[in-house]
């Protein structure tokens, strides 16, 4: 067997030893125009691009930066150029199945998107495995019966909230038959109980669902095989939210405006959850949290009231909870956190982050905490706790109080240097009982 070994020195052609499929793969990672232009490189490269397995078309690349968005004339010319390039490429491409097809029509006015429907049909006819569409207005219904699809991303970036509310709300999803779809992401969609049901019932093996910046009215998410659910930045209009997913493993809830008035959660297999919300909703969700949860992340949003009333939560015992992470805004989050700590007898790792930590020191509410906060922070001493980590970007009163509270609870820590932090940093306490 010939040993394939490419030397950096010498004048040999680097690509001569790379088999064609690898070059096709590399070409698929380039801008499609660039990929086609490689036809000029050498005899071998002349037709390589016709075997592109992945296509990624972006209308934005065909516009000039200084184009006036309202200037119809140049906009239409850009549409013409875009359509010509894409359609010629699709025509000359070798007619084999696609792996990934991405099409972004952002910046294209609604009337011009008809020309893009043909492009989407090409993808469906060539049994694409992955489809990413950033498309104004309704997508062509052929995608809903593209049985080869495993991953679908639909972005309706042009829809304004008003448009969604009064027009899209009533458009129903046609027959859906996506038996191979595992991953679905909807961005800026309007979903009511009907179209959610139609969508989900047609995706029998769906595992991953992400709803981002959607408008959800009376949303019922019921699915047998769903493993990962993320609802991020959505608007509920104070309607109800029902989630019934017996195999759900992870649940991310990042609030969201006009939160649901009523939430029913049925996720018996849930192991991981990340909740970002206001105190009141956080309480509700914690009370409904699955008892088998193993890893929990709570991000308290900026809290609107001066001081929240400390209502003892009726929490179940989280006997499997090993790892708890909390992003703190003010001291007032603490009674709730303490409730969770008390109900987590087997907790091994606790991480406390100061809000703003993740965004590299953005000003958060924590810096404006009034000094009139109620009691000092009390930290419940969990017996099985192995490590406590506190991360902060600004050493303020809250962090100092946290330090004191940790010292109170975990006496006998030899290395007090653990607690002396610079203006930003970590306090890590490794415990051994």
């Amino acid at each position, binding site marked *: 067997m010939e040993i394939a070994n490419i030397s950096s020195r010498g004048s*040999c052609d680097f690509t001569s030893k790379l088999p064609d499929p690898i070059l096709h793969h590399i070409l698929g990672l*380039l801008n499609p125009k660039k990929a086609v232009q490689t036809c000029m490189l050498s005899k071998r490269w002349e037709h390589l691009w016709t075997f592109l397995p992945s296509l990624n078309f972006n209308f934005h690349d065909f516009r000039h930066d200084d184009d006036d968005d309202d200037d119809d004339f140049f906009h239409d010319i850009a549409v013409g150029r875009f359509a010509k390039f894409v359609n010629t490429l699709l025509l000359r491409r070798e007619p084999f199945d696609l792996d990934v097809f991405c099409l972004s029509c952002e910046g294209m006015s609604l009337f011009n998107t008809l020309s893009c429907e043909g492009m989407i049909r090409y993808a469906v006819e060539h049994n694409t495995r992955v489809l990413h569409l950033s498309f104004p207005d309704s997508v062509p219904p052929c995608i809903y019966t593209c049985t080869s699809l495993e991953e679908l991303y639909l972005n309706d970036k042009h829809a304004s909230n008003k448009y969604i509310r009064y027009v899209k709300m009533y458009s129903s999803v046609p027959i859906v038959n996506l038996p191979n779809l595992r991953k679905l992401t909807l961005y800026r969609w309007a979903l009511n109980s009907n179209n959610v049901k139609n969508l989900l019932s047609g995706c029998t093996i769906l595992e991953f669902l992400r709803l981002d910046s959607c408008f959800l009215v009376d949303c019922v998410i019921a699915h047998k095989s769903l493993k990962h659910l993320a609802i991020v930045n959505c608007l509920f209009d104070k309607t109800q939210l029902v989630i019934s997913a017996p195999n759900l493993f992870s649940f991310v809830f990042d609030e969201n405006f006009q939160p649901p008035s009523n939430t029913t959660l049925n996720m018996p297999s849930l*192991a991981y959850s990340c909740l970002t919300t206001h105190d009141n909703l956080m309480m509700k969700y914690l009370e409904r949290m699955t008892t088998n949860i193993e890893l929990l992340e709570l991000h308290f949003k900026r809290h609107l009231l001066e001081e929240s009333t400390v209502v003892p939560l009726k929490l179940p015992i989280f006997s499997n909870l090993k790892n708890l992470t909390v992003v703190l805004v003010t001291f007032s989050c603490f009674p709730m956190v303490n409730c969770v700590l008390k109900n987590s007898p087997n907790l091994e790792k606790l991480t406390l982050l100061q809000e703003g930590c993740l965004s590299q020191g953005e000003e958060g509410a924590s810096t404006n905490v009034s000094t009139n906060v109620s009691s000092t922070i009390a930290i419940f001493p969990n017996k099985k706790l192995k490590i406590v980590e506190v991360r902060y970007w600004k050493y303020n009163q809250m962090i100092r109080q946290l330090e004191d509270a940790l010292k109170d609870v975990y006496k006998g820590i030899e290395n007090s240097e653990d607690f002396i932090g610079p203006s930003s940093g970590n306090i890590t306490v490794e415990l051994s009982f």
Partner: protein
Amino acid sequence: MADNGGKKITLKSSDGEEFEVPEVVAMESQTIRHVIEDVCAKNSIPLLNVNSKILSKVIEYCKKHVAAAEAAASKASTEEGTAAAASVTKPSDEDLKTWDAEFVKVDKGTLFNLILAANYLHIPGLLDLTCQAAADMIKGKSAKEIRKFFNLKNCISPEEEEEIRRENQWAFEEEKRTRAFDAYA
């Protein structure tokens, strides 16, 4: 943690050097996995297509990714889980990405040999990473620069080149506003 008395396997490079690695690390390669699973009781696997320098890099990649996967598993979050979450525990993902970016900062010859090895050993993550690195290297370059970069022998005559260009004129249209009308031609 991967070395906890787990079964070890020996990989032999084309130039005779032997590398002892935990079986779970070696199994990152689908090729090796099939050899182990189908042709049982193999203690030493010869890899005729990979020299020692490249093999040691490949092993480095596999060790790092196995360790990262184990760390993620202990947090009860799968790769998909962290993808679904806007998670603060993500730093480990960022660390891995940074590590990967450093890993592919190598000379052209090594990069292409890594691509070949990833392909031969069937390690999808490494293949994706190295192909992306190669694509990034040619992204901003002109045809002439790419030819130089790849050491391509230009065996096309100027007439042939002109003909290819004419056939694919639609891909070479400049984006300048002055030529806007040509686009409609």
